[in-house]
């Protein structure tokens, strides 16, 4: 089962012929992703020869869907063109657009997430590593070979923290890992993923990784209290982040008292979620929860 992405998913790559697009399309194919095409109006009609297969380049997302039946798009186009790319994908009726691009202006993200919602397209990202259903499909830039299929669902704002936990828990494995992105405005939230994991029979336990900024984790805590029956283990980064400074992720900024790591940790713990002090301790809490059968 997994969430959002399975071996049945047919994936287009917008910006496949660029440097990052080429590199990661190769990796996605190696991880078993069914990449059915790239999109680049300037290179329509050509093909790109990867080791696993020869991938056609389409002039538009619409054409790609028509020819291949694609239902997922992974977006690598540069920030200045990302808004147009996502709107094109939504107009073409793609079910899921995974926006890897970092550095998209917030006004553009506000516009395309609202537009996609009105068209029924789910957006993951922007500024995210994408998502992986180990052993089935990988849409984005998450390294596929550091873990294996299993029964943990993971949702995170951060890429490398996701990798760290995937690696520490590689012996148990994951149903799906979703990197929702660190920007202030993202298309898919912690809560969306919690709901999907709760409904997914392959997921037994959920790992939620958050960081300073905004109140997404506090809202996730309220959602867990009311709607999630599966065990949830949390981790929050940014306890030592100073007020008013952006720490790499545009969203990771503490201004004023709300949005602190401490407030998020307390909100999660108040709903019974165990929160690890370090990634390693978080992994231990996951193991304990699974062994305890809770």
């Amino acid at each position, binding site marked *: 089962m997994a969430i959002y992405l399975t071996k049945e998913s047919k994936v287009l790559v917008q910006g496949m012929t660029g440097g990052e697009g080429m590199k990661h399309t190769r*990796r996605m194919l190696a991880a078993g992703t069914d990449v059915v095409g790239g999109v680049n109006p300037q290179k329509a009609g050509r093909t790109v020869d990867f080791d696993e297969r020869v991938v056609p380049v389409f002039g538009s997302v619409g054409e790609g869907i028509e020819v291949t039946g694609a239902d997922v798009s992974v977006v690598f186009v540069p*920030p*200045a063109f990302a808004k147009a790319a996502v709107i094109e994908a939504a107009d073409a009726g793609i079910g899921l657009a995974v926006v890897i691009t970092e*550095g*998209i*202006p*917030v*006004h553009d*993200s*506000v*516009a395309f*997430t*609202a*537009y996609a919602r009105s068209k029924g397209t789910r957006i993951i990202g922007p500024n995210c590593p994408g998502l992986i259903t180990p052993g089935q499909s990988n849409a984005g*830039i*998450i*390294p596929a070979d*550091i873990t294996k299929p299993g029964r943990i669902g993971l949702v*995170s*704002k*951060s*890429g*490398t*923290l*996701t*990798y*760290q936990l995937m*690696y520490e828990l590689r012996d148990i494995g994951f149903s799906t890992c979703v990197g929702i992105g*660190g920007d*202030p*405005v*993202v*298309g898919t939230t912690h809560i969306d993923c919690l709901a999907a994991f709760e409904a997914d029979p392959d997921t037994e336990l959920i790992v939620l*990784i958050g*960081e*300073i*900024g*905004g*109140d*997404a984790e506090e*809202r996730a805590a309220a959602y867990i209290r009311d709607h999630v029956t599966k065990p949830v283990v949390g*981790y929050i*980064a*940014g*306890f*030592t*982040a*100073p007020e008013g*400074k952006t*720490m*790499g*992720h*545009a*969203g*990771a900024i503490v201004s*004023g008292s709300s949005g602190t790591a401490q407030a998020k940790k307390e909100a999660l713990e108040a709903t019974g979620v165990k929160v690890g*002090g*370090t*990634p*390693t301790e978080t992994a231990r809490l996951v193991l304990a929860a699974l062994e305890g059968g809770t």
Partner: protein
Amino acid sequence: MDLFEHQARELFEEHGILVPRAEVTDSPKRAREVARGLGGRVVVKAQVKTGGRGKAGGVKLAADPAAAELTARQILGMDIKGHTVDKVMVAEPVAIESEFYVSYVLDRAVGRFLAIASAEGGMEIEEVAATRPEAVARIPIDPVEGVTSAKAAEIAAAAGLPPQTVDVLVRLWGVLTREDALLVEVNPLVRTEQGRILALDGKVTLDDNASFRQTRWGDEGFAHDDPLEAAAAAKGLNYVKLDGEVGVIGNGAGLVMSTLDVVAGCGARPANFLDIGGGASAQIMADGLSVILSDPAVKSVLVNVFGGITACDAVADGIVQALESVQLTKPLVVRLDGNNALRGRAILDGRDHPLVHQATTMDGAARRAADLAHAI
């Protein structure tokens, strides 16, 4: 990036919002001339990117041009919450009849902008919102429609603002969208005794991600206050100066933030945040190390890399090469984990640098770096 008050004022004026006559200067003599031009009596306001200027003595009324010069001399060079005052704004005083608050701010919860408005301006809006929430109107803005006259009228009515503010609300939305701002705030927006609506003070935060299409502020706007941060930015590094003694380098913002926490958990204080991203090439590693080692407060350096996309042997090669060009003066603790970790560790063992220590876990590496920092 936050703009200075005088830059926000400039934007408001360009978008047709009335502002008091004023000029910004770094010279007390010029302040005297400006005061003379404005009729003698003026307000001298420190230009710093922090709140609480008034309480800190950074905003003062001057009765005549001579007093304006004296006041400017007092305020220039003043330290307000760690910000040095380099410029003052000399502005005409305004006869205020009533004060309002208006802003557009990003509501991250729903991924939209929100209009916040109140007829009780002039003070901390957080305080008004906390004590009398009914006095603060919060109206979500549809990103496609934006703020039309009808929407502005709705905001004004909800907050109890006079109808003349509708035009200002529409124009302020223009500032937000056309300048790629994440926040525009006018506090106070005032009605003068003559019945004019004036933006008396404002705050604008621009979106750094939009700097590729918003070039007007150039280097001035996106400049870093801290010299180490400026040096790091010039090398394209994502560096934030902190006030501890353990330098931190890692790959990925989340992992680096987590590393800071783990260092703090070991009883040490991180000296900086430095995310070298996925690449971790020799050049980036060398640039990162040289910035961190130039911080006199640093006593040890922790490199925490998880090999995901980048394999650890490539990172180890990068560290070894960086050690050729950077003179290592402080102990360096390296933790490599993930893809090809064993090969990466073997490469560092082979280099056998006396100041380079290895650890296999994140917690262990942080403990080691903290101990080394305290041993000096």
